[in-house]
């Protein structure tokens, strides 16, 4: 019995030690980089926020931001995500309280380069500005957004994502 315990410990202890060292090392590294990572992430969001409401400042709510310019609430910004042609599309959407889109910017997407990725280009995203959320549909679906040729799926995905999320936020903010 003693022998057995000894044998087991002989084998297990190196692994345990390595595990502990690893845990410690990683925590240390994490501590080193944590702030930076958060800053980077925040930066991404801020960048997209600021392209939507120029010059505004933002207060974070549950799942959306309230944009204020000199204390006055001018609109809401929120992240909308859903599945496109090649994977998840994350967008930052800005909306005025009256249900008009102020702007859309793509945070991340994995569509086909040269095709679906054109949804991130201003030519496409600028179309959203000033549209009412009911109208945020592809033209062929009865809306006012022109799809990108050859990338109907991506175009439709993004309009649907934006509209659906906008409707939810609209209800929440009422």
């Amino acid at each position: 019995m003693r022998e057995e315990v000894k044998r087991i410990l002989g084998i297990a202890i190196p692994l345990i030690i390595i595990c502990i060292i690893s845990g410690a090392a990683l925590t240390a590294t994490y501590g080193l980089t944590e702030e930076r990572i958060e800053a980077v992430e925040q930066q991404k969001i801020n960048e997209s926020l600021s392209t939507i409401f120029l010059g505004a400042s933002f207060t974070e709510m549950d799942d959306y931001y309230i944009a204020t310019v000199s204390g006055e609430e001018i609109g809401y910004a929120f992240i909308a995500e859903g599945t496109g042609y090649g994977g998840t599309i994350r967008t930052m959407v800005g909306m005025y309280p009256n249900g008009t889109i102020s702007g859309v910017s793509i945070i991340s997407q994995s569509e086909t380069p040269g095709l679906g990725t054109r949804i991130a280009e201003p030519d496409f995203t600028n179309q959203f500005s000033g549209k009412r959320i009911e109208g945020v549909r592809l033209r062929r679906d009865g809306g006012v957004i022109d799809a990108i040729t050859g990338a109907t799926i991506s175009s439709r995905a993004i309009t649907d994502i934006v509209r659906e999320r906008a409707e939810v936020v609209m209800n929440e903010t009422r």
Partner: protein
Amino acid sequence: MIEAVIVMGVLGIVFGVGLAYASGKLEVHVDERVERITELLPGGNCGACGFPACRELAEAVVKDHYLINNCRACNEDSWLGICNILGIELGRRKQEIALVACSCDSVDKFEYEGVRTCAAAALVMGGFKACKHACLGFGDCVHACPFSALERRGYQYFVDLRKCIGCGACVDACPRGLIKIVDKSAEVFVRCNSPDKGKVVAKICEKGCIGCKLCEKACEREAIKVENNIAVIDYGLCNGCGACMEACKFGTIVPVFHAEDAVDSTPKVTRTEKKSG
């Protein structure tokens, strides 16, 4: 910090102890000798040992040491290495080579059309050669050799003795049974396999053995005997003097070239040529 270390520590304990415990309970003995022997084996997977792959032979050898004799392909060094691993002592191993016993000089008896392999051609009216023992020349043996030791030159087939390790794969492939495995010490060789009567052979082939027994008479050591209309050399007795070669009128008996440049010299079968030593 603490959480991470604890989590990792716990995982380490659980798995470390688990694996350690399990490794005691569940230990299955594997023999590392198998690995080492496999490394020493030639790795041609030629199948001549009766096992489908070198590794299988290695496994068998560990159980039955003397099976190592089955591998014809390993050289002296690996042979000794394997004996070392097994902790046994075997005497000097016999080394063998393959030689093709036909000069392919027989005339055709008809025009063959069909699958161009020896084995298939041999099944059509006994082969298209007038001599029913003659090489059919499609080179099944060449394709069979795992060591690329056989090659065709002109119409004849030769073994490159630097490459051949006597594995016997070609022997199995030749439908005519023309390839003979002989001791590596062989210096002369009867390049015919026809047991037909001399009269028959002489009619259809210029280089065939007619069983005239001139070689038998020429050999001082009685190493060559005509049996069943064909001369057979006993390499245990033969010292390679070449007297039989001199005696044969048809050039049926040829020298065996072991030299490094064997590729070029093997096929020159002229009666006056003789190997020294």
